């Protein structure tokens, strides 16, 4: 079965792009292809000028289902990237204490101060999602792949996360690829939004978000943003009906 | 045997060891129809050692068995509640022996001093070593014993793990010469019978209470065994054919040699020629009991009548051989 039709797109370094589209249209699959976790059956994925043949190395990734290692505490889950980097002699691997501090700061930022010593099974769904997000960020990757990282969060925590993303981006350059169902989220965070359609998955529409970056939550109520969101809603709706 | 099987009396019988040449009297008695002719339907199972057979008869797993009479004496003393009794001797001279190789410079028992000797823990000649040592003038504690399963025994002196082994003469000698290709002249053997050890060997044994309940069955069994035994002595080759039929894996040439060795060294001797097959000489049996009790350090001494009864044997005339 073919999950994705030919999809060809280029993501400029330092930009954030978002993929939106109906459930099951192939967004998660696309992200895994980019990360090199799935092998392409046809066509090619090119990242940083090189075709992807195996898993990428310098990425941070958060999956749709937050996957924490159940045998490690929250903090130890966050130290995982450090361990790998250090063993691989990566220059970004600093000493353990620096990372610990960074991990604790991150946990604090996502509202999980003090949760470092807890076991993953003791966390709520949204808390796990936030830990998983921290793990994707902690080694300051050049490419960040996020699959609905905020779906299990309440509106406010979610908006705080948007702002966190914005601050991170402001502090350091990285390329972001975001899969989301929340059109406001896409508009707030991305420079380009790809609207996908199903059967097989393909990119139906591309929108450049013209608003200046960094953005404020108020900008989401601007006429431009409202209009874009309305337009994308319309673009997703008929696709689903065609599928049915 | 194809007469009405239902009217036949069933007997479960355990051998001492696998089906080989020396087991021919029993196999022949069955194959030639001697058992069936007596109205017996005998099942013959192989054994796991002539001492184990004693246990299996004692526990009632088997009605009758072919086991070591010396172990039976020991068993009776240790379990006075349910004694066994021997009703027919097949190996009149005990096949017990120590075997060694010339290359170790062992010419007589004295030379064994300081040597390691290999045998399974329950091996009869191993357990009778103290009395052999006494008779041969060797200090009993001047050797060390190494425990090993039967199939490991003969290769051990060949490879140099031990300098000597104890065991049944016909088994050990043939295994060394036939199977391990040691030249006959290389083998040194000390037969216990040549050192004043007057024991009997393997016998047909039965539980005393079972014997009381089934005297006729025992009588018929021994009659048939006597017939089979005589056939074996008369025509060992034909007996080996029966062995081969019962156990297709057997090597006929080796088993024939083994049988002939057993006949000449253990089954037929002057006493047998004089008194007939399967019987005993009570005076000798008394000496044998004395020796067993001494060697195994048993707390009490059974009488000859408690160990053997000839009451169920066919008349001496029928047991006579030429």
């Amino acid at each position, binding site marked *: 079965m073919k999950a994705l039709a030919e999809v060809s797109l280029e993501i400029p370094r330092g930009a954030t792009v978002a993929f939106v589209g109906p459930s099951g249209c192939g967004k998660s699959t696309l992200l*895994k292809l980019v*990360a*090199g*976790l799935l092998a392409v059956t046809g066509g090619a994925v090119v990242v940083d000028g090189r075709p992807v043949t195996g*898993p*990428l*190395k*310098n*990425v*941070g*990734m958060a*999956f749709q*289902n937050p*996957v924490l*290692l*159940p*045998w*490690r505490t929250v903090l130890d889950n966050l130290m*995982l*990237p450090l*361990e*790998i*980097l250090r*063993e*691989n002699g*990566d220059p970004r691997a600093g000493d353990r204490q620096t990372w610990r501090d960074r991990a604790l700061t991150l946990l604090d930022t996502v509202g999980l101060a003090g949760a470092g010593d807890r*076991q993953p*099974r003791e966390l709520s769904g949204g808390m796990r999602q936030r830990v998983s997000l921290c*793990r994707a960020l902690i*080694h300051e990757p050049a490419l960040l*792949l996020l699959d609905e990282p905020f779906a299990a969060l309440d509106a406010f925590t979610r908006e705080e996360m948007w702002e966190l993303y914005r601050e991170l981006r402001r502090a350091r350059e990285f390329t972001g690829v975001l899969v989301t169902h929340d059109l406001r989220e896409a508009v707030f965070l991305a420079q380009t939004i790809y609207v996908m359609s199903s059967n097989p998955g393909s990119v139906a529409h591309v929108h450049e978000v013209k608003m200046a970056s960094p953005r404020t939550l108020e900008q989401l109520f601007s006429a431009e943003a409202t209009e874009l969101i309305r337009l994308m809603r319309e673009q997703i709706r008929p696709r689903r009906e065609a599928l049915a | 045997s194809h007469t009405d099987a239902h009217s036949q009396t069933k007997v479960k019988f355990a051998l001492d060891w696998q089906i080989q040449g020396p087991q021919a009297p029993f196999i022949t008695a069955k194959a030639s129809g001697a058992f069936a002719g007596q109205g017996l339907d005998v099942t013959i199972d192989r054994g796991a050692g002539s*001492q184990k057979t004693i*246990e299996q008869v*004692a*526990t009632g797993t088997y009605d009758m068995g072919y086991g070591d009479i010396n172990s039976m004496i*020991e*068993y009776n003393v*240790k*379990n006075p*509640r*349910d004694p066994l009794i021997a009703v027919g001797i097949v190996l009149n001279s005990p096949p017990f022996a120590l075997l060694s190789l010339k290359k170790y410079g062992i010419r007589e028992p004295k030379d064994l001093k300081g040597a390691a000797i*290999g045998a*399974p*823990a*329950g*091996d009869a000649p191993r*357990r009778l070593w103290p009395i052999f040592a006494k008779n041969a003038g060797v200090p009993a504690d001047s050797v060390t014993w*190494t*425990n*090993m*399963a039967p*199939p*490991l025994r003969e*290769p*051990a002196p060949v*490879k140099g*793990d031990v300098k000597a082994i104890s065991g049944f003469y016909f088994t050990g000698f043939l295994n060394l010469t036939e199977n391990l290709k040691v030249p006959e002249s290389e083998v040194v053997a000390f037969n216990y019978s040549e050192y004043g050890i007057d024991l009997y060997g393997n016998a047909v044994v039965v539980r005393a209470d079972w014997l009381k309940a089934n005297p006729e069955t025992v009588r018929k069994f021994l009659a048939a065994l006597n017939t089979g035994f005589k056939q074996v002595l008369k025509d060992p080759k034909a007996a080996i054919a029966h062995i081969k039929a019962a156990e297709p894996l057997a090597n006929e040439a080796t088993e024939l040699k083994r049988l002939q060795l057993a006949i000449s060294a253990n089954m037929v001797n002057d006493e047998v020629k004089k008194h007939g097959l399967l019987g005993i000489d009570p005076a000798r049996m008394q000496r044998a009991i004395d020796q067993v009790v001494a060697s195994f350090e048993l707390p009490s001494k059974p009488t000859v009548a408690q160990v053997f009864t000839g009451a169920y044997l066919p008349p001496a005339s029928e047991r006579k051989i030429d």
Partner: protein
Amino acid sequence: MTTRSRRIVLPLLIFGALLLLWEAAVPLFRIQQIVLPAPSGIAHTMVVTAGPIAFHARHTLVTTLIGFGAAVGLGLLLGFAIGASATVRDALYPLLVAFNSIPKAAVVPLLVMWFGIGAVPAVLTAFLLAFFPVAVNVAVGLATLEAELSDVLRVLGASRWQIFRKVGVPRTMPLFFASLKVAVSSAFVGSVISETVASNAGIGYLMAVAASDFNTRLAFGGLFVLGAMGVLLYGVFAVIERRMTAWAYAD
């Protein structure tokens, strides 16, 4: 009663009840001593023979642990190789299985023939019996690894070896420790078998001698010692297991 004390008291209670039943059954059904001696008689013999029993038990224990250690090492290695590479699995597994189907009791005489009588064949037998369950369980654990768990590490640029260590090993721990418990029992069985066939020390030897003396009480005593030692070894690994894999057990 705490869980801890219940874990010790409950099986002892059942064990005691079984012993009582047995003790009562022996005179009741007039069971011969050679068939089944009464527990009291066995206990008496064990007390009288405590010295030699302790000596032989220590010998068996050392043999078992050496063989077991080697088995865990090789079992892990093999399990990893088989679980990680389809080619290795396809090539080696059938041979391993064939080897495992050969009763080690049948191999002991060969080992004795090759290495002489004593501790070496016992260690080897222990090893041969113990490595297979370890290898199989580790291989199963690795082969049934959820893809998502290793994906987490793959995108960090982790090598196969790192994924094995960071995800494969911990994820497989419950299976691995379950296999250790089985393997240590197997190793124990292996050394005892070998001692029975050819050795001058060890519980296996003790039992062989007891059997040849019609000393069924001592033979049964040997069985009890084996059982007790087995429980002890098992218990040690069960404790280690609980420590290492608490996360896998919902309670």
